[in-house]
């Protein structure tokens, strides 16, 4: 007991010494630790697994290529269970016990919103790769939180482009069926900002709890509401259930699903092809996206993980680790302020084109519009994702 306390003390002082001597330049051969907060248990564990695999793959690629200026990268995962309480304690563990240099996370918007003040106080850079609630970057950069960045499209851009796309297709009456979370409710809240101008009307609003399995009552009500389409900002695991129950309630093939919820995943389409055909989704990325870097990523991901098809969170976290590595390299330091400056000025060549950050630390990156046609996702366009903070 005494001994371990003593060794902890020496380690702490040695570290303090290192930090004192090393900032802002690199310490000798120090490993760069990147904490990864994501849900690894609970209903959203699937997302966390994808995020972790994507990030690990990127770290491996960076290390195989000689690291960042000779420093290898290590990913330290922490489980958020997709709840703010668990996410906050996971983040605290990463900061206080694992003493990570940077944090990537979370996938769930509610968790990311809770993490932001924490990393701000600790002075650690948080680079989000998957949360879409607009508030996250409304409150970052010139909006307040200096150390928070987001490399993912926001629901505001998504909501606006989906509403516009639906209106173009003549889908004017939408029935909302979204998940009851900051993501699901946030997306609808921002949808309402754009419905008036597009001449689109929301005829009903329903929110479901995570883990719900029976949607027939609400789908029956939607069938009788005269809606043209179902507007859904949902979770990937519930999309197949809703789609199959749409067949049961006689909605399949009549009302398309529009919004976001991994409509394009092969397993989802296979579970209910009749309901998924015609579905319209705005997605950050999808495996079918054709560009040299993107196809190469899919190939190396599938080679690394027994042929598993990556989803957009695997891609997002892979890309974000590479982006962070470039920022550290350009800053030539792991010092938070230096990396913040590097990220603010970065122009990162991603497989989807160059990515930069606006003054709210929100990535300016494209959003893909896709439609499910004969059981296959088809990219029908892409929208430049710039947020107008003024209105």
């Amino acid at each position, binding site marked *: 007991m005494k001994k371990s306390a003593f060794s902890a003390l020496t380690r702490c002082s040695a570290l303090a010494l290192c930090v004192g001597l090393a900032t802002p330049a690199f310490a000798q051969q120090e490993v760069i630790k990147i904490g990864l907060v994501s849900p690894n*248990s609970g209903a959203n*564990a*699937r997302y966390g*697994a994808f995020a972790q695999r994507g990030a690990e793959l990127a770290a491996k690629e960076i290390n195989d290529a000689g690291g960042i200026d000779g420093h290898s990268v290590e990913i330290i995962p922490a489980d958020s269970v997709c709840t703010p309480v668990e996410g906050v304690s996971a983040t605290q563990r990463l900061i206080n016990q694992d003493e990570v240099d940077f944090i990537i996370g979370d996938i769930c918007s509610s968790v990311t919103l809770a993490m932001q003040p924490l990393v701000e106080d600790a002075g650690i850079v948080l680079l989000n790769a998957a949360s879409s609630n607009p508030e996250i970057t409304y409150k970052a950069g010139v909006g307040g939180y200096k150390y928070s960045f987001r490399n993912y499209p926001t629901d505001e851009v998504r909501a606006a482009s989906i509403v516009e796309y639906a209106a173009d297709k003549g889908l004017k009456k939408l029935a909302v069926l979204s998940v009851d979370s900051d993501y699901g409710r946030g997306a609808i809240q921002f949808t309402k900002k754009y419905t008036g101008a597009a001449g689109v009307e929301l005829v009903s609003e329903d929110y*479901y*709890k995570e883990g*719900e*399995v*029976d949607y*027939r*009552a*609400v789908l*029956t009500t939607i069938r009788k509401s005269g809606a043209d389409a179902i507007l859904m900002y949902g979770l990937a*695991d519930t999309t*197949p*259930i809703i789609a*199959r*129950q749409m*067949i*049961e*309630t*006689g909605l399949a093939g009549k009302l398309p699903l529009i919004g976001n919820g991994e409509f394009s995943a092969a*397993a*989802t389409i*296979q*579970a*209910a092809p009749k309901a998924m055909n015609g579905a319209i989704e705005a997605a950050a990325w999808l495996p079918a996206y054709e560009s040299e870097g993107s196809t190469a990523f899919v190939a190396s991901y599938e080679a690394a993980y027994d042929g598993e098809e990556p989803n957009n969170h695997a891609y997002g976290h892979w890309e974000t680790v590479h982006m962070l590595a470039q920022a550290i390299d350009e800053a030539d330091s792991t010092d938070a302020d230096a990396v913040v400056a590097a990220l603010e000025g970065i122009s990162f060549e991603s497989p989807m084109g160059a990515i930069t950050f606006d003054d709210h630390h929100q990535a300016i990156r494209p959003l893909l519009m896709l439609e499910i046609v004969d059981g296959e996702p088809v990219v029908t366009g892409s929208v430049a994702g710039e947020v107008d903070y003024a209105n």
Partner: protein
Amino acid sequence: MEFLIEQILNGISTGSVYAIVAVGMTMIFGVLRAINFAHGEYYMLGTFGGWYAISALGVPYPVAIVIGVAVTAAIAFVIGRLVMERMIGAAPEASVVATLGVSLVLQNSVILAFGGSYKFFSEGYIEPVFFGDIGIAQQRLLIIGLCILVFAGLEWMVSHTRIGKAMRAVSQNTEACAVVGIDVRTVVIATFVLGTSLAAFSGILTAPVNVSVYGSMGEIITFKTLPIIVMGGLGNVRGTFIAAMILGIAESFVAGQFGLQYRDSVGFVTLILMLLWRPHGLFSSHARF
């Protein structure tokens, strides 16, 4: 009115699923005087067996039902010999600990083998049948039909076959059975395998409409089954059927009128009320089988 009929139909189909699971649990209680806390896990095993048969072997759905039930029966036989057999005449707390242990082992073995993520069951007959404006999936009609067949079969078995009569005898008096030469162990194992196979059968039947398949899916089934077998009178087959229908329809109404989030509370409220006022169930506890 249509809404009401649709709710009742939905309730009956849910009740049928519960009934098939619960009747197995109540029969096992009859011969062993033990609550099988791992019962939902056999429901999960059956579903996984069917899912695996479809996704890995590519067999059609009806064949997957047979495979799922057969695999579960085989696993149940092994667990019956290793664990359940020892519960004959054992203290009640022994069976609680043993079956909870089995539940943890089965759940985590499946997660270890297939991973913790959700799988999707994409087979079955989910096209709707419309009666006027009331729609119901073919699969749900199938579940109701098969439930009636299962109960008719069980009634016939316990009244006309040797093993069925032996099951009734063991549930009434284990010692007297041993005296007259009924092999109690065989009867217990047979009941256990039959009861768990029914849970597996119910699991595969429900999979097409519940869609997601995952390791811990059995937990909620165990907890739904408890109030049903208590309401039905522990060990009472007909009582279980009626109790399952009551719970299914009540849940359907609550989901439709008050919202989905209150549905699962129906079972627990029922359990508390039953334990307060009629701990022997709605029907006499003496009318076993």
